[in-house]
């Protein structure tokens, strides 16, 4: 069947089998491989997208259900050649390791800050429950979200990896090359 929706600001009209999930449609027809398939059961959050501004697990939404909706993925966040400030914080603070949870994590965190569900570290952690990360232990992600919430995030970090300035001072709590115990 035909599904018409807006994907990262562009109108799309796709022919998709009704039993396909939004995740399959985005990855295999729309080419949005920035949306990740982690579990297919609505638990890991790697496939999170924003549908009409609301975060959802695209594995648990059927493609026809977004007919007429606006869909945003993590690939649509950077603008004007600069990373979204939350993305910049994630990079600078070491919130990205293998990167597979990152797209969903960023979108869930973005929603949490937007709706006021990231007021404290504890609130951030509850808002990110269901975005599983196996690499970081979550601390650096929570720090990145808190910094973004507090408006500390830079908005001038290039989105092109080749142009990316490595900032020794911006890299989180261990930025200084300390010698000995305790940094």
């Amino acid at each position: 069947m035909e599904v018409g929706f807006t994907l990262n600001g562009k109108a799309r009209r796709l022919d998709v089998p009704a039993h396909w999930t939004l995740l399959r449609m985005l990855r295999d027809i729309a080419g949005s491989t920035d949306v990740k398939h982690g579990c297919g059961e609505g638990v890991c959050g790697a496939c999170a997208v924003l549908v009409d501004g609301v975060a959802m697990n695209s594995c648990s939404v059927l493609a026809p259900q977004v007919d007429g909706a606006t869909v945003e993925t993590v690939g649509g966040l950077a603008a004007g050649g600069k990373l979204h400030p939350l993305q910049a914080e994630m990079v600078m603070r070491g919130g990205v390791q293998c990167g597979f949870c990152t797209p969903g994590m960023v979108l869930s965190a973005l929603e949490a800050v937007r709706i006021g569900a990231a007021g404290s570290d504890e609130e951030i952690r509850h808002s990110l429950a269901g975005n599983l990360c196996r690499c970081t232990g979550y601390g650096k992600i929570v720090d990145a979200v808190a910094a973004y919430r507090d408006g500390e995030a830079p908005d001038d970090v290039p989105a092109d990896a080749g142009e990316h300035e490595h900032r020794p001072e911006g890299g989180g709590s261990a930025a200084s090359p300390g010698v000995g115990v305790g940094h």
Partner: protein
Amino acid sequence: MSDVEVEAGSRIVGAGIARHDAVEKVQGQTVYAADFALPRMLHAMLKRSDYAHARLRGVDVSAAEAIDGVVAVYTAADVPQNTVWVDVPGQTLEVGALKARSNVLADEVVRYHGEPVALVAAESEDAALAAVDAIVVDYEPLPVVDDPEHALDDDAPDLHESGNLLAHWEIEEGEVEAGFAGAAAVVEEEYRTQFIDHAYLEPEAGVAWRDTDGVITIRAATQVVEHFRDVARILELPDNKVRLITPYVGGGFGGKEDMTVEPYLGIVAALTGRPVRMVWSRQESLTARQNRHAVRMRYRTGADAEGRLVAMDIDILSDGGAYALLSALVLLYSTTCAAGPYRCPNVRISARTVYTNHTPCSAMRGFGGMQVALGYEGQMDRLARELGIDPLEIRRRNFVERGDRLPIGQELETVVELPALVEAVGERAGERPEPSGPRRAVGRGYACNLQSYGRCIWLNDWSSAWVGFELDGTLVIRIAVPDIGGGQASSLIQIASEVLGVPPQRVTIHIGDSALNPLTGTTTATRQLYMSGNAVLKASRELRDALAGVAAGLLEVDAERVEFGPDGVSGGGASVSFEKLLAAAASVDVPWHVLATHHAPKGIPWQADESWRGRVFPDFTYGCHAVDVEVDLDTGGVRLLRYIAGHDVGRAINPVSVEGQIEGAVAMGLGYALSERIVFEEAQNLSTTFSQYLIPTAVEMPRIESLVLESGEGMGPFNARGIGEPPIGPPAPAVAAAIHDACGVALTELPFTPERVATAIAVAGGGDGAG
């Protein structure tokens, strides 16, 4: 504490710079294994066994083949070489070298739930799934072996021709019984650990195609590009006709160390001539990919009145599951680390791993060295209580030092900074928190560990790297390293940048390709920074030395006075751009690149005989952790309040990446401690979804504080030690100690689920008076 020596100054090494790969990852631009597509690509899927142990009477694929869009359905008979043979080192001659077999597709008998039985290739995923559904397998159920204690009984069915003993190691040093006879205190306990899953976020995936000159090219998520050789054997092709590429991998932790999708992709590409993609579902991954070994450990430990260890008797039984894979090596790690980072003159270790019908077990972060931490640290806490000695003090009295030998015979060559770590962690921990309410109790626990980095030395490990300039002064690193998320590639960029002066953003690294990049070995065993880092360091230094000689002529200074900066070389007040330097180098036949190889230290080759003793690993990393918990005395729930993880990393190449490894490993260790377990019922895996297999979320995790000590001693580049695996050992024993401290119950079986904690509290009298 030793002084740090950094030969090449410290411009980039030691800086917590942002990783180059993070910029693309945070935008979803990284093309992971499942994100790649090819024209006319087929989709492959596996039919997996519903039974844990059954004879295959027949596999009827006719209905599947009849489905529109199905191109091929393969069973064991279609695989050119269906049997995969593996080495099983260990002190057992029954199995021995190249004697353990597994199958690409099950042949005659399935031995675990989820074992691949048939392989489907179709024009669409929908057709492939329909075909998998349509395959009819006629099973004759066989009795399952699901208790390792009984696997060696006479009446247990043999799962393999060699019997159910997969491997064993026996160590005896000193006079063990005499040691116990002289002990002031002897504590004895049995500890049990569970099966767990790696549960990285990226399920197993890849694509394959037949490329020019008949080379079967596989682009898959793997920790080991050297598996191209295994695929070649399966396809009965020469090794040089299979190429394995690995893009950035969405987590490995040992779960992508054995092959996953690679053989199936190779088969479809070779037999159909079409490109193919295979992506495992999370449920397949949880059902059938190899696990961490469940281990039963019996420890008897004796100490004198001052708490100094006098004897240990350790019996380890590990459940290897249905096929050998890496179980024998995992058991060697358990054996090597069984006594912990402690001196003891009289030690007996008996370790066995056996076949059962559980999912095969193999590599996972910590690789046998981590399960035993629950045992040796549990024993130290018991001795401390028995003798009335502070738990950190009793450890201090027993730590190994440089020059000591582990029971297996390995001498410790580098400094052991455990006393400094214990002091620093104890100081950081400070005051204990107060309980948040009635019927809540708080407690603190400590645990220390040692974990090797680098592969077993008799494997003659080596790593190669190519480092070269481009004409515009940018730098290229070529190295077949798989980057599984730990910053393996970015650390190499930092090392080359440090030596050659080119800023990191002007360095490009080509990774993970077995055909076009120098082979550097597996991203396993906490060896990549150590081995590949040394290879890149060596190549960079040789390149610098060669070009410095050319620059010396241009600058009219001694070669030692030539400095490499972002834009070129300088010295004696003058400077020359890289472009000019490279042109000058070409004119005198000095290449712009170097291929260098780093070799790990050698030792006495292992022999299959009980008297063998010797060096097993290059070196070890040591740690001390502390945790505060709050126990809900009514429900048994354990809340993690605070976590401190101290390690001597020798030298932190990138402190943010070091912290990332520590925090991530601790989180994984805490999931192991509290919630993760694969539950089997008669060898049927019941933990096949992410809603049943509970890895921690951000809510359960406390803030994990990394305490990084840099002793300046280690065998990696700039004297770094490996840190990928070591921090996973202490969390479980630290949590056990903290729960005991909170409410007086001594737990010995992982995970410490609320039910187990509550049951122990009830048995102990309800936790009244705890606190």
